[in-house]
């Protein structure tokens, strides 16, 4: 594409320069990371609550980069939980069923809470597995009984 193309002109983020909200937000992340390292305090920043120009969110994500963990959750539509290049800084993006972004958060934590298996789900899963095994056992007993009768 020609650099003089009008689309490029309209995109005021086309340069590599940091824009107005990118740098303060990255400093906020830096301070949050310091607090995590020294006081084990976690922080969450809602990217929807900050006025960002076109391209600024991409610039923030580009600077934070991609780290060691990428997880895709299947929860009411999908969600991506990605650790950035900076350990302890995670980007959590929630999508609806049409894969449209409905929320994006920067979480500064050792592990985003949504990644953990939840106590309620664990309790429900434990009951479900026990029932499943009971059913299997009953089916096995029924088929054994039928085999003996034959």
């Amino acid at each position, binding site marked *: 594409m020609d650099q003089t193309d*009008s689309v490029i*002109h309209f995109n005021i983020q086309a340069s590599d320069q940091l824009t*107005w909200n990118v740098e303060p937000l990255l400093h906020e992340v830096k301070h949050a990371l310091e607090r995590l390292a020294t006081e084990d305090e976690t922080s969450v920043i809602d990217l*929807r609550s900050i*006025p*960002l120009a076109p391209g600024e969110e991409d610039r923030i994500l580009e600077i934070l980069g991609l780290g060691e963990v990428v997880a895709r959750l299947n929860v009411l539509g999908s969600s991506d939980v990605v650790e950035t290049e900076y350990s302890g800084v995670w980007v959590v993006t*929630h999508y609806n069923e049409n894969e449209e972004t409905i929320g994006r958060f920067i979480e500064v934590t050792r592990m985003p809470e*949504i990644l953990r298996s*939840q106590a309620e789900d664990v309790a429900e899963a434990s009951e479900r597995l026990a029932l499943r095994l009971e059913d299997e056992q009953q089916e096995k007993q029924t088929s054994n009984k039928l085999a003996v009768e034959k």
Partner: protein
Amino acid sequence: MASHSDKEKTLGDVLRSHGVSRRSFMKYCATTASMMAMSPAMIPMIAEALENAKKPSVIWLSFQECTGCTESLTRAGASTVENLIFDSISLDYHHTLQAASGHRAEEAKEEAMHENHGKYLLVVDGSIPMDNPGYSTIAGISNYDMLMEAAEGAAAIIAVGTCATYGGLPKASPNPTGAVSVSDLIKDKPIINVPGCPPIPVVITGVLTHFLTFGALPELDDLGRPKAFYGQSIHDRCYRRPFYDKGLFAETFDDEGAKAGWCLYKLGCRGPTTYNACATTKWNNGTSFPIESGHPCLGCSEPEFWDGGGFYKALSIPTADVGETVLYTAAGAAAAGVALGALNRATKGSANKAHEKVTLEDLEK
């Protein structure tokens, strides 16, 4: 429409019966907090409140309106999370969305009002004609009678859209139907104003969710609008604000300034006098908002925006007593913003008073 037994369930029960995992519920709470413009620190409290929230009955009345507000609301339904909100309220009457019609629809409304007297949430879009009740009726009942009857047993009223909140387009000069807003007529019930033409979809669902979550009204400004969404001006949250502060303005829609994304103040932008969440929440699932698409804000969430002077005239241009001096002085100093805002409001008032009716001859010139 939910069955009677469903209404006894808490939202937590409803979600579990839909097979929604705790992890999904947490996602729901995180996006709900974001939607209600609340701090992420509030997420655990929202989770606890939502877990125990009961399904409220909602009655939605539409009067002199264009159905744009309902169109907007249904656009919010693209998301599974927002669909869950509607699973968790009992929308007992909405004559555009409900399947029932005629007497059966009116009976459903009567039943919901009777069963939930004093507890239901009344949502209203559209203004109410006071000159002649025959201008707008539903099932032979005038808008005024229907509103007053439904308001009597409501816990709270949400006026959705600029018509219900301030009279809107029907009230525009010369106001042929004598249109008035909900708050002009009802003084003894809590009213939440959710203006906009239309309001942002998630602002409508956000206000409903706030009531569902906390069972109380959100904090309101002096015009009865929730501060979470209407607490800051478009101008203060606009990503083009730094251009305004530097005095860099687009002068026409196709000049170099417009192409470079400079401030649209001189092209009539109402951002400095308009309070709404467009600049951060944005439209079409967060895609953009009018200024991002290169068009000035029309100020649709402010009272009498239709009569506030030409949409493409800068706020400081219409009257000689304000003049261009303010524009250039303020452009150089952000500190002047507050004073400019006050002058802009005065200007808008003068423009309202000076507004003259456009005749057919004018249009044919």
